[in-house]
């Protein structure tokens, strides 16, 4: 199959029926694999890794904190992508997927903030510091709130999809701007991103690396969170499609008597 043909084949999932049928088939797989990854990763991480020589056992909150933070950002990126697809191709499923993902993103952001506070208390001696990274997540949280509030406020589903998509686009630009502004505003306590740097993975980075002992269970947790996110979004998108269908059928009934 050529690339173009493959791309065309992908769009067939924009049909709500096709999407529902397929997502119902693959959902059990995502639930199961994400649950096993999370259980394995968390048990491994919590009980079978040594305490850090500086941070003690508090370091183990990393298994929730880092994956949640990653998903908080990736969820917004996914919403950005699906919003663009809606604006360009007008596939309803795409807009509904963005709507379905937002609350998941909010929860992920909250988990990242809460675990960060719990971790920060013993480490920095304070629940909250206006550290750039923490502040950026707080700002991301505000953007999520606005996005969800706009969806909720508008009656007509297509108008809501259009407006929230534009807000998502504009919001993304301003979120990035805020990130740079916040960095400029306060150099912080937080260590750099721990996972994505090459040094962290190879273990050559001396100061702030996540060493291999912690890294493999962390990787497992991240995979688990990604799968959990996919499962939640597929599931919630299904719900949104059904809610939309009910609304459409009710309107139909009212109009046609």
């Amino acid at each position, binding site marked *: 199959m050529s690339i173009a043909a493959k791309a065309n084949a992908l769009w067939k999932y924009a049909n709500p029926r096709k999407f529902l049928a397929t997502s119902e088939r693959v959902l059990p797989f995502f639930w199961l694999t994400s649950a096993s990854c999370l259980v394995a990763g968390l048990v491994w991480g919590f009980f079978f890794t040594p305490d850090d020589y500086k941070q003690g056992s508090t370091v183990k909150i990393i298994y929730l904190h880092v994956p949640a933070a990653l998903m908080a950002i990736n969820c917004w990126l996914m919403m950005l992508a699906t919003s663009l697809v809606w604006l360009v191709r007008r596939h309803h499923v795409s807009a509904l997927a963005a709507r379905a993902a937002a609350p998941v993103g909010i929860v992920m952001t909250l988990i990242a903030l809460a675990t960060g506070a719990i971790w920060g208390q013993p480490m920095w001696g304070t629940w909250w510091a206006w550290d750039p990274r923490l502040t950026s997540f707080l700002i991301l949280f505000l953007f999520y709130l606005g996005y969800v509030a706009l969806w909720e406020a508008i009656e007509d589903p297509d108008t809501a999809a259009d407006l929230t998509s534009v807000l998502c686009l504009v919001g993304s630009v*301003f979120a990035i701007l805020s990130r740079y502004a916040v960095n400029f*505003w306060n150099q912080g306590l937080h260590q750099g991103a721990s996972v994505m740097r090459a040094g962290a993975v190879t273990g050559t980075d001396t100061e702030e690396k996540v060493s291999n002992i912690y890294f493999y269970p962390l990787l497992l947790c991240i995979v688990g969170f990604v799968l959990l996110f996919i499962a939640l979004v597929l599931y919630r998108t299904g719900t949104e499609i059904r809610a939309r269908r009910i609304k459409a059928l009710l309107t139909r009934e009212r109009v046609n008597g």
Partner: protein
Amino acid sequence: MIALLLRDLKLAFRAGGGFGLGLAFFLIVTVLVPFSVGPQAALLSTIAPGILWLGALLACLLSLDRLLALDWEDGSLDLLATAPLPLEAVVTIKALAHWLTTGLPLVLAAPVLGVLLNLPAPGFLWLVLSLLVGTPAMSVIGTFGAALTVGLKRGGLLLSLLVLPLYIPTLIFGAEVARRGATGIETQTPLLMLAGITAATIALLPFASAAVLRINLR
């Protein structure tokens, strides 16, 4: 285009136009600050640049829900949308009118309120300059928020929720300039960043505002 600007200015200055409300709000917020944090001159002069920036920002926000909503209610927006004027120009003019009636008076009033808060002498110039550069961005961003919520019955609160996060970069760099200026530190970098944000929002955001306005007019 000039006609629209003149009409909006006229409407703002006539009875019930709301001109001066933002200014009065700015004054009251500034007066309330010493009541809440105490009258110590040293403390006030430390927080003065930040408080004045925050006050100006909130005063800007206050008048946003009237920016397009009035034209929406009396049908002018429908008629403007079918007029030869592109909607991009309409929203730009609306933002300009908002700045002239809200932003600019705030800039001019800020030094007077700075005296009330013991703003250090070197800070006045930078406060005015940063507000002068930053308030246009607030009007343009606010117009985008107003365009997003124009069709909603009770859009005011939602408008704040949508617009305030978008104000964050402007606030950070603007207040940074004012704070640095007041303490005599170099202000060039944040001032350039602030000017960059303002220029970019003026250049790009009207397209987004016009797009959401079109969606709302459907």
